[in-house]
């Protein structure tokens, strides 16, 4: 109790962890990174075979159920990880009033692009 009242603000803050949501951000970045290891390796390996295929070949590949599921998972993990990473970059270099709008804009852009990719995947698979 005495330490609570008499200690300096620093002494009271030490050991309590982040004052913001840094821990969750840090964890989400790692979890999405772990998910992206197999997903991106799958993507690169299968793109090697499909980079030159025509529209019919590409559609036939994406219509496979495992391909569709993996592509959607890739888009989710990729743009979640991208949003988290770009947020840190913005917070490190932008110190004006633009910081918050930039973070919000990046979040929304990543969400919109991920949604576009997922909808395109579903349209090809089921359309």
């Amino acid at each position, binding site marked *: 109790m005495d330490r609570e009242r008499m200690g300096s603000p620093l002494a009271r803050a030490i050991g309590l962890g982040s004052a913001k949501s840094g821990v969750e951000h840090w964890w989400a970045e790692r979890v999405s990174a772990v998910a992206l290891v197999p997903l991106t390796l799958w993507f690169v390996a299968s793109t090697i075979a499909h980079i*030159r295929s025509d529209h019919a070949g590409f559609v036939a590949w994406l219509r496979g159920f495992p391909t569709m599921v993996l592509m959607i998972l890739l888009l989710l993990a990729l743009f979640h990880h991208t949003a988290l990473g770009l947020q840190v*970059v913005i917070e490190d270099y932008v110190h004006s009033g633009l910081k918050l709008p930039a973070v919000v804009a990046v979040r929304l852009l990543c969400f919109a692009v991920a949604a*576009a990719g997922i909808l395109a995947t579903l*349209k090809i698979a089921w359309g």
Partner: protein
Amino acid sequence: MSRSRPLSPNIQIYRPQLTSVLSIANRITGVVLGLGGFGLVAWLVAAALGPQPYAAVQSAFISWPGQVLLVGFTFAFFLHLCGGIRHLVWDSGRGFELGSIYASGWAVVAASVVLTAATWVASAVLGG
């Protein structure tokens, strides 16, 4: 400021080292790969729109500038992947000795070069 105060040395004072170069490279490749994600979605959306838009995107990918860009993205991907795995090992509390830091750093560089080359050789052999 009226008085010039002593400043701590800033980043441009130091000679670039493997550690600092890989640190900023991980960040730069992360931003580059974010842009690459937009390319992936452009590919998917074009395919969803039909054969003509798909052919337009495909011809951009197969053109010389497109191929150079894709090789760059491949290298950025492997550098970020290997650098990210190095970070995950550090997150477990391991590999912080100076010798390990440099060994893992050079391993990341070597693996990225080898994997990029292997990917494009495989693409030429299998995807042609």
